[in-house]
């Protein structure tokens, strides 16, 4: 039966493999190659400059600031977003007071909340960023108006204009816009957990917290792990780029306090005409992403539970 096995498999996979190679692997290799050149992105002429771009990167304070912020994003955002989403979805599916005849149920009005939590996902991230920009407006924004209304007229932060606050303001927006997706994802996961487990736990007198940590979380672990990687990639990539580009001073400021790698790549490639240097920063972003994904998969390795 071994005869022609490879030809058989490759024959079936040749088209997707070729597509993958052309549209994913090939651009990666090209980018890595361009990071060793001084290509401007505006003309077909360029020459190979070896490690120049990487040397420059090592001495570029803006690069280090961007790297630091990207790392903060990828460490903080997924953990916070997943924690909030897990709590909310647990409350919506398991955490309610028990109705008659049901082992577990969500809080009152759970179906309605599920829809509401998903709203931010429907909005384009650009619109979300713009809306929050109005909210953060120090002169006429809702936040400072609220502070004045509760008698804190003396406390009027500049929010996005304050280097100490700006990064956290941007992160809060990302949290707000992403939590809903994970609530729905985890809700779907939780609804597939057999009810008998909960019934058994209840008979043993387990409280809510025990139920969550002993039953819900372990059985949901696969979903949590993929959600973690996905959120990390979002935090490093497109989403963080969009909110930083739209909302922040500069963008990327004040004084480099909010710049992230994805935005810095864009600025170097499309503002300063330094595509070669931009791809070098892109390679750094790739390394951070791979390290993160590898780390999460390694940390999160558990026995698979079959149920």
């Amino acid at each position, binding site marked *: 039966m071994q005869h022609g096995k490879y030809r058989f498999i490759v024959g079936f996979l040749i088209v997707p493999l070729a597509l993958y190679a052309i549209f994913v692997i090939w651009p990666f290799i090209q980018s890595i190659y361009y990071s060793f050149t001084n290509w401007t992105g505006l*003309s077909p002429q360029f020459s190979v400059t070896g490690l120049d771009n990487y040397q420059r990167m090592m001495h570029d304070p803006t690069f280090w600031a961007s790297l630091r912020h990207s790392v903060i994003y990828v460490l903080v955002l997924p953990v916070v977003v997943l924690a909030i989403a897990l709590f909310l979805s647990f409350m919506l599916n398991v955490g309610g007071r028990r109705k008659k005849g049901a082992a577990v149920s969500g809080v009152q009005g759970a179906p309605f909340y599920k829809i509401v939590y998903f709203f931010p996902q429907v909005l384009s991230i650009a619109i979300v960023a713009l809306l929050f920009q109005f909210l953060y407006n120090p002169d006429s924004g809702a936040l400072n108006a609220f502070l004045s209304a509760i008698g804190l007229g003396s406390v*009027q932060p500049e929010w996005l204009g304050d280097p100490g606050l700006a990064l956290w303001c941007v992160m809060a927006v990302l949290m707000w816009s992403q939590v809903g997706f994970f609530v729905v994802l985890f809700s779907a996961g939780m609804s597939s957990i057999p009810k008998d487990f909960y019934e058994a736990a209840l008979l043993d007198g387990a409280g809510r917290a025990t139920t969550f940590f002993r039953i819900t979380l372990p059985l949901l672990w696969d979903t949590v792990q993929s959600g973690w990687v996905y959120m990390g990639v979002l935090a490093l990539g497109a989403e963080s780029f969009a909110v930083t580009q739209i909302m922040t001073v500069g963008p990327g400021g004040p004084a480099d306090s909010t710049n992230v790698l994805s935005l810095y790549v864009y600025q170097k490639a499309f503002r300063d005409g330094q595509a070669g240097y931009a791809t070098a920063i892109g390679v750094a972003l790739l390394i951070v992403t791979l390290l993160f994904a590898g780390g999460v998969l390694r940390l999160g390795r558990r026995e698979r539970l079959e149920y």
Partner: protein
Amino acid sequence: MGSTSAQNDGGLGRRDVIKRSAALGLVGIPAVSFLSACASGGGSDDTTKPSKAKTTAKNPLGVNATSPLDFVIFDGGFGTEYAKDANVLYNKAFPKAKVTLTATQKIQTQLQPRFNGGTPPDLIDNSGAEQMDMGVLVGQKQLADLTALMDAPSYDDPSKKVRDTLRPGVLEMGQFNGKPMYVMNYAYTVYGVWYSQTALDRFDAQYPENWDDMLALCAKAKKKGVAGWTYAGKYPYYVPFSLFPFIGKIGGREVLDAIDNLEPNCWKAPAVKAAFEAYYELYAKGYILKGTPGLDHIQSQTAWTQYKALFIPNGSWVENEAAKTTPKDFQMKVSAPSSLDSSDKMPFGTIWAAGGEPYIVPAKAKNPLGGMEQLRIMLSEGSSRNFTQKVKSLSSFNGGTDGLTLTSALQSGVDALTKAGPNVLNPRLQDWYVDLEKQKIGVGALGEMMAGRMTPAECVKKCQEFSDAAAKDSSITHYKHQ
């Protein structure tokens, strides 16, 4: 074979298939030398340029009458109407030429592949947020020399050359290191301190011509709950629109030239420190609208048109941009920066005015002469008047405003230019070193100082550091005033 699968019949595990297919996918990676052909998708030098026609009085550049004209325009504050009108005139002269006008807001996204592939259009309005870096384009020899256009007889008066019909500074702005002219800035922008005459009337004030009066007026306004100044805190590189000419006025033209040339200690000139201290005083005395560091350009302009602040550093596009929120009786005006004191090197009226909306003809264009001819048509008095009427901005054509009824803002721009006479400054930092001007000096230093997080002395030091780093940076092309 090292199968990881559970089946021990030597079958392939899933993991194995993936590993091997990845290997297969990578086998085809050719040598790097082949790779380098990828960025350059063509760029062969034997592009078939249309044969040059005979030059006549009607066709001084010798445009081939049948060659199509490929024109890409940035569709922004000025719209595209004025260019369409110029296309009509071009077609009148060359009825057989097919003119395509492509309007886009994404100049770089649209045109980058065409530059890399060696098939750029014949004329580009390289403007907007996605403006392609001029310094890079020039350094990479991607732009055609426009000297032929400058030396051609002007559209209205064949006895005058085109170069003699332009407003001050436009020609120099198109040159890089004194090399030929590569960029034709079509619009003409007046930068300075913008205000509402109506707002000043409420305080029985005229525009304060020196800094003491400025501070006095701000103090008066503050008592009434009106801020003296606001600016685009989110984009602090708006502050130089009034700060740079202020520095030039205090210390003379050469201070700004030294800054543009990235000379050592250029920011340490006394004029710079004096100007910084004056602006910092606005912050220190609480004359800046609260929350300004968090406002973007639209929000700050809106606060200004709502009479929340008297003054804003800006350029003449603000009239169009803020039109929606501007009250009818606002009487928008622009002024040159106030004097610091009587020892200023240049008189009151010294202003920053410069070309904007940069038009370029790519070196590899199929019909570069057509692109230049289209520009020659646009630089006629008729086209210029049409532009001014349609978009409320001056053009680089010197004149063309007589007999037009201008809005208050536009009229004040014309008056400011008349008052300035030869004292027109043109700092070039924002054209030559975008990153340095916007990200570093704008956001990293001036923005911090105006928000009160940096003293003027620290700000000077920081600007100098940024300037020195840019001077040392071998990855950017450096330019000098000639």
